[in-house]
């Protein structure tokens, strides 16, 4: 952009030249699964049984945990299972969409480069050709520049310049790093968390905010960053998040390569690759309404709206709060809260005017209520910047989760779209001129919130230890909604179920 064109556009933008009236863009709410989900809650009457079938293994839930369980079964040469997914497509939080401009994520959009503990994740990426002879595929690793922050009126590459801006910030950031190094040495914080996870920790008795206070961290930059981190990863603000969970974000990852791994459609790419391997045995639109042990026999009976399956083993890979409504004798619903999220995909005719460093993959506005946006066309090899899609994330964290969920449910498409645009206009004043579509998706229960005490919650321990015929495998069991956690729990459950079924590894 020439200096002249820049001056012209930013002048108009500064003057707030936005036409009122029609928004100038289209879009709507993308389909979601809340309807089918809420039918479970309402305990709507079941339809007639049209199919009765015996299947050795039933997997309930087609998110990353369920797909990973199925992937593991296939790897062991076991194909005699059925995966039942409530929604019209599999993928859970890793679902994606696509339009003429680009594929784009609806949720999870990257996987940090798996470290040495994440052996199953490394197995998967070797299977998918992303890891060859110990070398990560360069095209899949997030291209430079990975991250930028908008503050003091312009974009700055990386987060460091913000965190080290003043001498006080710098000193506190160094002290923070020292604390993290000590914690890292404890070996408690790993990915997947099951490897190092202690059964309790003094750090799980207080919130991240309390921990920052206790350690006398006062740097505004550091405190903002810490809060941003837990909102971004767990949908939970620092005032509510367990300090252990917050520190896990900073301590657990020790990648041997600059990452993360990412794709235009985010983790939807992984979903597609997994479906290539397991898709033949996935039934979408199959809401599981009841799971019960067989009376007087081994195994379980799994009832959907219109079918009944008798199985020797069942892997529950759906959210745990749903299990309390569906699984017989499950007991009371576990005490946990879930975070509501709003995700927007903005289709842009061209890159909007902006000031500062070059566009990055992850673009964050400091002091914004949202979490910024990810550019879906970032991984393109072309030197040209054409039309693009931005995925904007916003974990609603004001008030209690229930209050935030009501706020989210009450938002009309146009109100929600305006909320998104107004947030992004801080950094891109002329954004409206280039926005073609704003497509939205609301996630009432996007993920478990890791609040203080989550680490030692007895139900997590009990469900993880359950030994058939129902195995539980979902990231809710870690309380950390991460790909590696979902995969780890899904595969652990599959291992248990296959052992029960007497399946020996084909490898």
């Amino acid at each position, binding site marked *: 952009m020439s200096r002249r064109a820049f001056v012209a556009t930013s002048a108009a933008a*500064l003057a707030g030249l936005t036409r009122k009236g029609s928004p100038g863009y289209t879009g709507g709410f993308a389909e979601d699964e809340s309807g089918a989900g809420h039918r479970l809650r309402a305990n709507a009457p079941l339809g007639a049984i049209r199919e009765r079938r015996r299947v050795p293994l039933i997997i309930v839930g087609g998110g990353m945990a369920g797909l990973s369980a199925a992937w593991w079964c296939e790897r062991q040469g076991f194909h005699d299972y059925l995966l039942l997914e409530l929604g019209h497509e599999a993928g859970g939080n890793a679902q994606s969409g696509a339009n003429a401009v680009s594929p784009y994520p609806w949720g999870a959009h990257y996987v940090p480069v798996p470290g040495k503990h994440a052996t199953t994740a490394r197995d998967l990426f070797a299977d998918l050709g992303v890891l060859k002879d110990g070398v990560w595929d360069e095209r899949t690793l997030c291209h*430079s*520049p990975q991250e930028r922050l908008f503050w003091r*009126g312009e974009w700055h590459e990386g987060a460091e310049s913000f965190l080290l801006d003043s001498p006080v910030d710098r000193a506190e950031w160094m002290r923070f790093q020292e604390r993290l190094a000590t914690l890292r040495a404890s070996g408690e914080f790993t990915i997947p968390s099951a490897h190092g996870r202690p059964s309790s920790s003094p750090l799980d008795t207080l919130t991240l905010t309390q921990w920052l206070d206790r350690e006398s961290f006062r740097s505004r930059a550091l405190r903002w960053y810490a809060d941003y981190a837990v909102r971004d990863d767990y949908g939970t603000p620092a005032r509510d998040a367990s300090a252990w969970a917050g520190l896990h974000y900073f301590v657990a990852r020790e990648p041997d390569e600059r990452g993360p791994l990412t794709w235009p459609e985010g983790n939807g790419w992984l979903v597609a690759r997994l479906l290539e391997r397991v898709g033949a045995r996935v039934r979408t639109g199959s809401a599981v309404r009841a799971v019960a042990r067989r009376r007087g026999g081994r195994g379980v009976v799994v009832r959907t709206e219109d079918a009944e399956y008798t199985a020797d083993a069942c892997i529950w890979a759906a959210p745990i709060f749903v299990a309390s409504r569906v699984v017989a004798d499950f007991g009371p619903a576990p005490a946990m809260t879930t975070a509501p999220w709003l995700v927007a995909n903005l289709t842009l005719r061209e890159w909007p005017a902006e000031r500062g460093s070059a566009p990055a993959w992850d673009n964050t506005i400091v002091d914004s209520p949202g979490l910024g946006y990810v550019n879906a066309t970032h991984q393109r090899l072309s030197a040209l910047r054409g039309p693009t899609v931005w995925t904007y994330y916003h974990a609603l964290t004001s008030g209690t989760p229930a209050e935030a969920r009501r706020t989210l449910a009450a938002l009309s498409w146009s109100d929600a779209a305006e909320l998104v645009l107004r947030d992004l206009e801080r950094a891109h004043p002329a954004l409206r001129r280039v926005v073609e579509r704003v497509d939205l998706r609301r996630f009432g229960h996007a993920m478990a919130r890791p609040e203080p005490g989550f680490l030692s919650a007895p139900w997590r321990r009990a469900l993880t230890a359950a030994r058939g015929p129902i195995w539980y495998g979902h990231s809710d069991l870690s309380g950390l909604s991460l790909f590696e956690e979902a995969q780890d729990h899904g595969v652990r459950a599959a291992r248990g179920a296959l052992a029960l079924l007497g399946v020996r590894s084909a490898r």
Partner: protein
Amino acid sequence: MAPALFATVCLIAACGLVYELVAGALASYLLGDSVTQFSTVIGVYLASMGVGSWLSRYLSRGLASRFVAIELMVAVVGGWSSALLFLAFAYTEAFRLALYVIVAIIGILVGLEVPLLMRLLKERFSFKDVVANVLTFDYLGALIASILFPLVLVPKLGLVRSALGFGIVNAVVALWSTWLFRGSLGAPRALRVVGGVVLATLVAGFAAGDRLMAAAERGLYADDVIFARTTPYQRIVLTVWKDDLRLYLNNHLQFSSRDEYRYHEALVHPGLAALPAARRVLVLGGGDGLALREVLRYPGVAHVTLVDLDGAMTQLFTTHPELVTLNRRAFSDPRVTVVNADAFTWLDANDAAFDFVVVDFPDPSNYAVGKLYTTAFYRLLRRHLTPDGRIVVQSTSPMFARASFWCIERTLREAGFSTAPYHLYVPSFGEWGFILAGSSPYAAPPTLPPGLRFLSLGQLGPMFDFPLDMRQVAVEPNRLNDQVLVRTYEREFEQINR
């Protein structure tokens, strides 16, 4: 009489505020950090007004003509302030100095206006009414200006013409004042003539506001511009001075016709002359057709594909009379196929194999171009090479950007190539570097094509030898996920420009 006088107050107040807002907005756009810019501009402006008010005590005689003169000065300085500041930003390093000097001059002049006007009016009205009315209309004018500025002036006129427009208002007020105060003016005619001239230049500037910006660009080039065009990809400018034809892309010199033969002979022949069996050649970048001209010297070369992003560039160098003379109608050679596409995606989408590839991209000054200097790109290129094939990469200056040059060399090695770096002196660029890369070690050619102007066999040896100040340095390879080259290059050029 009274309404006209107070309307004058209202207008000059509006003018004063507009200049202040223009300066603040302009500094914000150009320098960023709008809070600082507006705060400092307002601060300097108000303080200068104080200075002006204080200075007003030293004016005692001929108040009316002094007032008219001040109005005209405000019209000139304020009216042209925005244009002057743009030029200062484009051509000088002293934008901030110019900004605060201009703001201070306007502030002082505006600060003089009101006290003078009050003294002029106190002879006609009671002091109490003068103070009340002048201040009322002063604030009213400020209100009008502050509303007009964001809603009408900036969006409809832009900053240059807004300032000029209010300069016109100031000049009209000055002329009008020669009638209002005609009783107290010594030489109204002289003031009217000066006022007329000031007004005329401002009106002319206002009418030509758009072209003014274009003129600023022309001034960036020392020579005559014979061609200028903005394509979707870049700004192409051709200049000529005597027999020197120069091409600039985005203000960066691409070649000078006086010494481009040095660059292009050195780019092509050390590699291609060493491949006597080469039949298929690929040129990436090089839309000027000059590397192509050198490749076409080889009768054995049966087919050349040139991939350049910008169709306007290849079109220009296919048709422009002086340019086709320079590249010897390279694009009209039947052996040549031109593809206007992005090099990375084009290579990714086909599997053609070549014996020799000329990689002549712009320097890695940003992440977008930097992708074309990564291990991923060179690995892709290797798949398009015949077993004995070789590539040559334009690799910036090993003198001015030493670490960048060796970073490219390291990246090629990381991608599995055996490399042979070399350098030469190109007067318009300075010391420049290229790197030959292939699967086997490079051996110099026994002969060179006839008719060269620079390169000789004897020259080849020294070219591959690097003096101490250009010798290899240890650097990391450049990867898609960690573009160290762009950061290195940026750092090295910052050091030169200091």
